[in-house]
């Protein structure tokens, strides 16, 4: 299900939270409403962890991870690192990365199988990513922009990219990542989809400004809602006609 939330009146959810299939990280200091929205949907299945990175609340952009592991920048305090390690399940490997491009959330976009990275990322970091997150790493740009983490959101079911991405690029990326991709916007026409949206295999959270059109695009590409309007004519048609006749 796709939800609309706001963190302290800010619509950029992808900045203040990180969502994967195994855990969820949220920034500290927000209202209880924000947390209750996350916990309401996720707390049964996965832990929702309050954390900060390097004393900042922009954890969504600083760290990157999937169900296999989590990478944090070198500026993270030891105490924070310890706290995260304690809170997360043991299957998740937490690793600190020494990298010049320290906002890992902006330069890396990944799901459980593949990752897209900034073309200038260090070779060592690439190896660490491949190791810790157990993914295949590709150096690519999205819509001629190097900040792949900001302009691309991936889950195991699909992906959303910058609206200016050309059809050729979309096909190329799609074949690389082996998931369907769509170009779209979030938060009423904002192009920075990575910062505006967090998603995993069954839930997505977007800013309060997101229009219903954008939300339906998100739901369809990430396959979040079972009962969309198109499904009436495809999957449910057979059963409806059966019952009437």
């Amino acid at each position, binding site marked *: 299900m796709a939800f609309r939330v706001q963190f302290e009146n800010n619509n950029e959810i992808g900045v203040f939270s990180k969502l994967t299939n195994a855990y969820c990280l949220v920034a500290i200091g927000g209202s209880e409403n924000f947390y209750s929205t996350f916990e309401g949907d996720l707390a049964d299945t996965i832990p929702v962890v309050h954390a900060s990175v390097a004393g900042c609340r922009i954890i969504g952009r600083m760290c990157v991870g999937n169900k296999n592991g989590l990478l944090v920048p070198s500026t993270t305090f030891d105490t924070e690192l310890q706290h995260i390690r304690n809170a997360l399940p043991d299957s998740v490997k937490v690793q600190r990365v020494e990298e010049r491009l320290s906002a890992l959330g902006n330069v890396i976009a990944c799901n459980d199988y593949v990752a897209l990275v900034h073309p200038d990322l260090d070779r060592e970091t690439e190896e660490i990513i491949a190791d810790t997150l157990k993914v295949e790493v590709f150096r690519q740009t999205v819509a001629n922009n190097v900040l792949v983490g900001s302009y691309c959101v991936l889950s195991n079911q699909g992906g959303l990219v910058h*609206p200016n991405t050309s059809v050729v690029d*979309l096909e190329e990326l799609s074949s690389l990542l082996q998931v*369907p991709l769509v*170009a779209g916007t979030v938060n009423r*026409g904002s192009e920075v989809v990575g910062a505006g949206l967090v998603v995993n295999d069954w839930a997505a959270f977007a800013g309060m400004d997101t*229009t219903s059109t954008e939300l339906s695009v998100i739901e369809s590409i990430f396959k979040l809602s079972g009962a969309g309007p198109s499904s009436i004519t495809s999957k449910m048609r057979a059963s409806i006609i059966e019952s009437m006749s």
Partner: protein
Amino acid sequence: MEYIPTPQSSEPTANKILCCDCGTPIAPNPSNMCVMCLRTRVDITEGIPKQIVLQFCKGCERYFNPPSEWVHCVLESKELLTLCLKKLKGLGKVKLVDAGFVWTEPHSKRIKVKLTVHGEVFGGAVLEQVFVVDYVVSHHMCDDCHRSEAQYFWRALVQVRQKGENKKTFFYLEQMILKHKAHSDTLGIKPIHDGLDFFYATEAHARKMVDFLSAVLPCKSSHSKKLISHDIHSNLYNYKFTYSVEILPVSKDSLVCLPKKLTQQLGGISPLCLVYRVTNSLHLIDPSRAQIAEINSTVYWRNPFNPICNPKQLVEYVVMDIEPIMDKDRRTFPGQGAISNKHVLADIWVVRASELGVNDNTIHTRTHLGHILKPGDYVLGYNLEDSNINDANFDKLERNNIPDVVLVKKYYDKSERKKRRMWKLKHLTEEANGLITDTRDYNEFLDDLEEDPDLRQNINIFKDNSKQIPVDSTDETDETIPRITLAEMLDDLVIDDVEMADE
């Protein structure tokens, strides 16, 4: 996991995204919304007023063009469009691409203008918007119509009077007013038997006229006001102001007798003087010594004097003999006032024209007209011997010092002059019941203009296109008749209405 082909792969050229508001597929743009949604959200014509008032004068059918111009415009014309666009504020922020009229009923008092503007919207997208502005035509009386309507309602009055027998000063005054356009604020001009009345809407205009008059002619003025109404609560008093201007009774070619004190002040001029010009000061000449003096307004009114003889009493004489007086023979004394260079003092013997051939009664006198007279000429002058003069200053003079005849000016054939006059003057009022122009006085005034170049310095003279210039120069009988050259005349302004001529 199935590989599902990307849904929007049909467009080979550009990618399409869904508009974030309505979901229609659009090409990506900086705001990522389709044009319709963008238009509902953003209005680039926000600062531009959609309803504006236009002012229109019913009397003269003109539209008001600020700050102070009234223009004739036909409905749906280019001038009206310029006027409407000029009134529209806030067009600076957007780019105007197109403007045109939308038809409205002519009597509806509404004018609709359709404008197309380009404006920038967030993110750099340029949006085009078409909108209609409503102009409401409201009635407003223009200043000219006001003035013509207010003719019967005046607040200030200037009464100009001259207690004399001669209208020549008034003709001169009329020409001066025309030249300096001092009558631009008057509501109306009414001629009274001794002068003129000027009506004004405000006291300031009347005062301006009074100042103009005192600068042009020697006159004295007084003023008074009459209370019409009084608003008790706001203490506003409504008055009718009246200015009374009295012009000096002396006119050109009249003979005056100066009081003794004044003669001493003017450098020992003789008390009997001729007035040879009246402009903003009085110019006197002593016929017996060709001495000139100038009296300005304040000096005159401090000790005023009346004319002894006026031009109606001029008598015709014939010159028998003339002998100019040499400079060495002239008697001068220290402290004497200025002597005129333009006149030649001469001894002259004349006979009355009516007595020519009847008797040999030649009269001897001194005259200042030596430069223009020769034996056989006709001269006009005053016969002091036979006249009965009633003047206090004159009575104080010694009988022996008074000349018998005082010659004033040379006499030309009247009809000849009138025929050959190639120029004309303009008048203040068009009606004939104003200052009647066909009388002797007017003709004398025109004669004066011809004779005196200094007098016509201040007057606009126009070419009379109805009279022909004489081709044959042998037709001219008397070449010494003073004439105004063609170079001095102004071409009368004739406005040819080209549009009417075409129709």
